[in-house]
């Protein structure tokens, strides 16, 4: 039996960053908003107090904050000739759940994409010719950097992003990233103090003629009060950000930046442990009537709503669109259809640096504690004759010195036993990592659809992921890894170790939780699922947030752009849609 509940103006499906942003924006506009979160309630003192937050075994290895794969997972394959199998243990990416979700256990790396990143097809075709992108299904976003700038800034003000501007209203600023798009304002807080590893990287990069700058971060450099009256503390560099909740309120998260404000709002309601099964549509399938959800006792409810906002993770949003029959599913053999199209990822590689004479003390760290160069990101360099488009930032980074995950040993060291122990003891304090954070271009065979075989705990088909690294990206990654190695050698280390991106994508080793695409934005319904305001072309009272909107992924962490798109969508909903519900973009 399905119980019908009282209607609300807007229902948010999932309560991480985009759910919190939309909740705050729509409540301030006077709407009655209900958020449904499938996972548990989480708050700082109860769930990640400093007395136990820094527990690597519990959080990193036993996945305490992540999705329980026994209830729901997805199936994985590299190409359509393979049979996809369920992912039974998380590796390559770590799926969040619960209030705040990935916003709780992220690193706090806050980036903006380059202006040219939003024009991946037209910009590269113009500069390098049509041939440069012919093997890829990359598209323009249908939105420009300039349009998103105020919303990027809104997220910076919310988080108290700590950094140094490199381009203020078109004027290049010393000490910042000279390649970034123009910012209207300086960061709200100064950059974090760079520890020894990042400092060595910066000196070496400068010696080679590059322009190193401090990584912009949501790990705060000083106490901050945001525009919502929520306060964040100064980071203590404990080195437990990624995969962990922050115990002392110094990492920007929905809990630290929005929830305190939102929970004082009488027109906001949050229900936890309520999983949305599907979006319900009217008989003519042009309008969503609400969502059906199930609670932890297995009872089903129909929640009527004027607007349905999919604010879950990329993979769940795409799956809900497919399960609900919103938009035409993508077919990789014909290239027709849009839902599931252009799934992309992030192309990661790294270089480990080992010293004899320098003590790095890696346990003094933070999620985004790094010095970075951006000379080889996006189209910041000439790709002529290189055989690829895209790029990466290279970061000399010390996110922490967690004793199980983060011990680097030189090339040729065995993975266990006496020799490993000697190498670990010798190198733990004297090594650190250069991270090469590469773009991921979409291509025809990489996509998401519903698995024909495997089902979740509710009997729904699992999502099926078909993905392998495009040749373009392997070429890019190799070029970038060589550049990083040059910087590493300029630090005069004892030795370095290159961890190149080789072979097919594997779900096993951790890479990054930057899954993108599948519900992509664009300028028309033939090529995209949603318009520039993240509104479904087919069912205009459904909006799909998150990195699912990215037609391909840039060489930066996605959260800043995810948040900017969410703010832009909220602005369009409040200023236009509420007054006149219907398509916000006429084709």
């Amino acid at each position, binding site marked *: 039996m399905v119980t019908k509940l009282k209607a609300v103006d807007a229902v948010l499906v999932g309560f991480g960053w985009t759910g919190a942003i939309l909740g705050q924006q729509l409540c301030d506009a006077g709407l009655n908003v209900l958020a449904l979160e499938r996972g548990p309630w989480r708050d700082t003192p109860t769930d990640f*107090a400093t007395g136990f937050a820094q527990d690597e075994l519990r959080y990193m290895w036993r996945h305490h904050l992540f999705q329980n794969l026994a209830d729901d997972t997805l199936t994985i394959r590299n190409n359509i000739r393979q049979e996809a199998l369920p992912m039974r243990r998380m590796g390559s990416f770590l799926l969040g759940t619960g209030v705040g979700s990935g916003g709780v256990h992220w690193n706090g790396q806050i980036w903006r994409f380059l202006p040219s990143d939003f024009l991946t097809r037209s910009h590269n075709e113009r500069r390098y010719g049509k041939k440069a992108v012919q093997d890829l299904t990359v598209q323009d976003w249908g939105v420009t950097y300039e349009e998103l700038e105020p919303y990027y800034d809104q997220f910076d003000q919310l988080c108290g992003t700590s950094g140094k501007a490199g381009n203020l209203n078109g004027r290049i600023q010393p000490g910042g990233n000279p390649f970034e798009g123009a910012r209207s304002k300086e960061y709200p807080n100064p950059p974090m103090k760079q520890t020894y590893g990042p400092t060595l990287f910066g000196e070496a990069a400068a010696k080679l003629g590059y322009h190193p700058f401090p990584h912009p971060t949501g790990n705060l450099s000083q*106490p901050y009060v945001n525009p919502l009256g929520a306060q964040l*503390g100064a980071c203590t560099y404990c080195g437990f950000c990624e995969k962990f909740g922050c115990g002392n309120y110094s990492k920007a998260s929905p809990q630290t930046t929005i929830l305190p404000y939102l929970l*004082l709002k*009488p027109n906001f*309601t949050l229900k936890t*442990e309520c999983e949305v099964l599907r979006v319900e549509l009217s008989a003519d399938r042009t309008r969503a009537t609400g969502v059906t959800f199930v609670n932890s006792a297995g009872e089903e409810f129909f929640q009527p709503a004027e607007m349905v906002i999919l604010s879950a993770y990329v993979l769940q949003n795409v799956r809900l669109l497919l399960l609900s029959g919103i938009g035409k599913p993508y077919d990789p053999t014909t290239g027709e259809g849009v839902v599931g199209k252009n799934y992309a990822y992030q192309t990661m590689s790294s270089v480990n640096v080992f010293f004899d004479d320098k003590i790095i003390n890696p346990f003094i760290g933070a999620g985004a504690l790094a010095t970075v160069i951006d000379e080889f990101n996006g189209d910041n360099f000439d790709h002529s004759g290189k055989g690829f488009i895209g790029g990466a930032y290279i970061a000399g980074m010390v996110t922490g010195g967690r004793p199980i995950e983060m011990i680097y040993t030189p090339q040729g060291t065995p993975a266990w036993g006496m020799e490993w122990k000697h190498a670990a003891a010798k190198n733990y304090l004297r090594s650190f990592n250069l991270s090469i954070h590469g773009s991921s271009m979409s291509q025809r065979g990489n996509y998401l659809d519903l698995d024909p075989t495997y089902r979740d705990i509710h009997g729904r088909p699992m999502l099926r992921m078909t993905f392998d690294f495009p040749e373009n990206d392997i070429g890019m990654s190799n070029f970038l890894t060589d550049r990083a190695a040059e910087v590493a050698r300029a630090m005069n280390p004892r030795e370095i170790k290159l961890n190149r991106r080789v072979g097919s994508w594997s779900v096993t080793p951790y890479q990054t939780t930057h899954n993108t695409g599948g519900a992509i934005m664009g300028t028309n319904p033939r090529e995209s699922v949603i318009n520039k305001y993240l509104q479904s072309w087919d069912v205009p009272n459904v909006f799909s947030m998150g990195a699912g909107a990215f037609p391909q992924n840039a060489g930066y962490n996605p959260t800043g752009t995810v948040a900017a798109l969410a703010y832009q969508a909220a602005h369009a909903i409040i200023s236009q849609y509420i007054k006149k519900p219907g398509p916000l973009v006429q084709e």
Partner: protein
Amino acid sequence: MKRHLKILIVVGLFSAIALVQILSWASTRNPVLERSASIGITSEITPQGLLSHSIPDTTANASQLRRGQYLVAVGDCVSCHLGKAGQPLAGGLGLETPFGVIYSSNITSDQQTGIGGWTADQFYRAMRSGIGAQGENLYPAFPYPSFRLITREDSDAILAFLKSTPAVNYTPPSNGLHFPLNIRASVKGWNLLYLNDEEFKTNSIQSSDWNRGAYLVNGLGHCGSCHTPKNSLGADQGDRFLQGSLVEGWLAPDLTSNTRIGLGRWTTEQIVEYLQTGRNAYAAAGAQMGEVITYSTSLMTPEDLRAMAVYLQSLPSSKPVTVETASASSLRRGAAIYSDACTGCHLQNGVGQPRLFPPLDNNSMVQQEDPIGLIHAILGGTHVGVSPSRSTPFSMPSFAWKLSDAEIADVATYIRNSWGNQGSPVKTDDVRDLRSRLDLNSIHYTANSGDQH
């Protein structure tokens, strides 16, 4: 019925179908809080909404209602009269006193169970003399000994506003008082002994700020209800006015000009900031004071807060107390525990992060003669009161699951005697007693505790 229920921040979380286990922001591993979390908040009107909604000009007697709304905040009516389901003013909250439990009454506009049928004369009599509508004596847990300073005009405004609030039909439980206090007439004798019949008189030597402050602190603000020590019959010890008192396992600290344990080092602006936001360079308002911030002082005008500060600063310092010396071994153990358990927020040198994590150096709260507040914070945790301008309920997590009674005694002793602080050593027995009182003898996990898979 624990007063801890009030620690729930009323957030408008509405779970009519009772499927949500939303823990409050305050929740730590304190089982009392966890139990309270299962209570669904069904009211659509939050206390903040009631106290801050704008009354339109078109409403009849709008100016009187606005004044009443403001005075309901000044009197902190909501903290005690909060309904079980979060309805402001519906009552039923138990106040633990040495004489038993007293439940707050329903003061919504409900005719049958609230005060909808009261006349202005009856209400003024209740505020001044503690007599209810039927002529019955009210218990002085309702602070009429303070409220009696109220002007007739203010009393009428409060009643007018209360009568404009949504009616909640609800009868609070009967009081659990011991004999002979369970007989209401016994209060008559108490009134004869302790009820001062004076009206508020302006002191012409003092400034208008001082006089306004005296009216607020001693009248509607009823600060002395918590901060003035009580005698064996629960009446104020007049000679120890605002020198700090025990309240439900916490210590309402000394508010006199004492520079070590009172407000002697605070500037007027710092007192105003504390009352406005619950946090300043020295301190953070937790436990019951957190509620006072949320439901009362954060809603007051800066002028009134300033007046209160001016008045409080004029109070003569309480007498210095002798402090016993702590043993070197206890301090050594305490230092090690502090380094492991406390430095993540309060930092190694005790300076904290002002307005986020209170500095512990030269902290008046930790140096109070009775260390129960410090013990309570470590054992059960607490959170800072929130207000629209500062919405983050910074929380001290409970350490009951992690530290033994002796360890808590040692670390508390260390904190009380470091960075310029002085305080007598904390006894392990005092920690043990409070642990049992708070029902923290066994470890209680939350739904999210432990490894899930």
